[in-house]
């Protein structure tokens, strides 16, 4: 059984280091501190106002950021791929580098510009003598949304640029010769051919936004509690491990569920 020799070690490693801890989380979520095994932690968490609010915030932030990334990413990728300009290649390369940046870096950079003591507010207070600047949105959900869109847009652009490079320029030229203006070419030729890439990038960003922690933490937005933030506060600050694990399980379920949905949809689309 030489095949088994090759298969066994990775399976065991995967089990010990990944699946077993995951199992522990799930088990903890059904073991309330009062002892025994019950679904009481789930009932408690689902009944709590904080959880429902966090769930709502997480979902709308993730959906909003994904839509923003898709729109912005599609527009930027179009320009980079189809409008020849000097340095276009360099921009495409930079996008690859951007993907390797940690997410909190973007938030930090935004803090320098729009933060309470940031450049934009500094210019305003210097000019008007007011005590506070007008840019206070960074600690609101909108600040988180801006940071997530800024950070995750390249994740949409990468597959899009790959898809665009596959489109035969002769198709675009023939479309133009048939009387189609730039807008119609984008809508009727480029967009349909880029749909699988758009779906891939969008679902990746959606899942990553659902689980994003660093950006929310670094904006310092006290009022913005997402599911990962809730896990953190329950576990680290309240030491309520069963509750933290319940939220974590819900978070995993949403992510895996969305991923499964994406697989079904993309298979239907023939991608």
């Amino acid at each position, binding site marked *: 059984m030489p095949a088994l020799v090759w298969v066994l070690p990775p399976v065991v490693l995967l089990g010990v280091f990944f699946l077993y801890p995951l199992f522990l989380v799930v088990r903890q979520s059904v073991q309330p501190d009062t002892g025994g095994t019950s679904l009481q932690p789930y009932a408690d968490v689902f009944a709590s106002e904080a959880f429902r609010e966090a769930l709502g915030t997480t979902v709308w932030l993730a959906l909003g950021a994904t839509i923003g990334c898709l729109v912005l990413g599609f527009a930027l990728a179009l320009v980079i791929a189809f409008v020849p300009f000097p340095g276009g290649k360099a921009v495409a390369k930079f996008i690859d580098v951007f993907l390797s940046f940690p997410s909190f870096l973007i938030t930090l950079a935004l803090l320098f510009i729009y933060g309470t003591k940031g450049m934009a507010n500094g210019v305003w207070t210097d000019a008007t003598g007011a005590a506070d600047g007008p840019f206070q949105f960074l600690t609101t959900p909108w600040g988180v949304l801006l940071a997530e869109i800024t950070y995750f847009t390249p994740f949409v652009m990468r597959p899009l640029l790959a898809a665009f490079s596959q489109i*035969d320029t*002769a*198709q675009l*030229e*023939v*479309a*133009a*010769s*048939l*009387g*189609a*203006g730039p807008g*119609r070419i984008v809508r*009727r*030729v480029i967009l*349909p*051919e880029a749909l699988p890439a758009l779906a891939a990038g969008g679902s990746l960003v959606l899942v990553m936004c659902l689980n994003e922690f660093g950006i929310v933490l670094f904006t310092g937005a006290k009022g913005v509690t997402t599911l990962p933030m809730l896990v953190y506060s329950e576990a680290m600050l309240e030491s309520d491990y069963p509750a933290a694990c319940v939220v974590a399980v819900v978070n995993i379920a949403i992510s895996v569920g969305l991923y499964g949905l994406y697989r079904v949809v993309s298979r239907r689309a023939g991608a």
Partner: protein
Amino acid sequence: MSSGIRFDRVSVAYGRHTVLDALDLTVEPGEVMALLGPSGSGKTTALRAVAGFVRPASGRVFIGERDVTGLPPHRRGVGMVVQQYALFPHMRVEDNVAFGMKAQKVAKAEIPGRVAEALEMTGMASYAKRFPRELSGGQQQRVAIARALAIRPGVLLLDEPLSALDAQLRSGMLAELARLHRELPDVSILYVTHDQVEALTLADQIAVMDRARLQDCGTPQELYRTPRTEFTASFVGNANLLAVTVRGTGAVSFADAELKADTGDAVSGATATLCVRPHLVGLGDGPNALTGRVAEVQWRGATHRLYVEVGGERVKADVRELRKPPALGDEITLHFAPEDAVLLAGGVTDG
């Protein structure tokens, strides 16, 4: 809408590299003009200047009476067919064909009828619901032609439309294109190709291009029977190009032989090039006999091609398949009729 194409001293340059040099050319309404030349000769650039994908550095392009030089491609109303078909992969055949009409805001009720008509004309009516990936190369090219014709263009641009097809399909499609041209006598066609057979078969006029310049323009018969330059002679058909010296009216000398040929206005003593088509060269003695040694024999099925060394130059002869082809090194005699030889006007230089 009957409209021709006119190039008025059109030049195109990429940086300092001129790819089309002051092209003057007119395609009459309803005419098929073949742009024939090797790759890099500027023929595709000329076509792209009509379509609007390259902007001339100088000169004007006219479609009919309309100066289109500054118009974007989608306002020019030309049909275009390219080598790699470029069908829209996510659309069914019928939607591919309807694309141009929708873009040009043709009345919705009119579109299905015109789609059917265009597909009927190219013999693809029964494939309307297929996707391009379900079609062979030849079928895809038919759909591409239907798509271009559906917008009823006055001008059709064909950019090496048969080059991606295999030889057998190509001759079939060539006949199809000739039929389409007969059915659409008002459409002017600019046909870019490097294949002389396609040009000779389809074109009313052939423009021979080389190194960014127009070398020659004329009917296929003119260019084939009385080429003006060596380039035309060798690119339109095969040619023996013999370096000769004019010896008075109606006579030239080649190697040691004295040959009869129409010398036109060439003065005695001038050096010139005599063009003789290989298939017009016969074996054995006769008028304008040349004797030499066989350097190479190629059997091509229906014909034998003989290369015969005469006075240091190789003379090609295409003769009907020989029962007993000569051996290498044999001494043989070739001949050709005086009226089959053309003294190239472009190559005459005073001795």
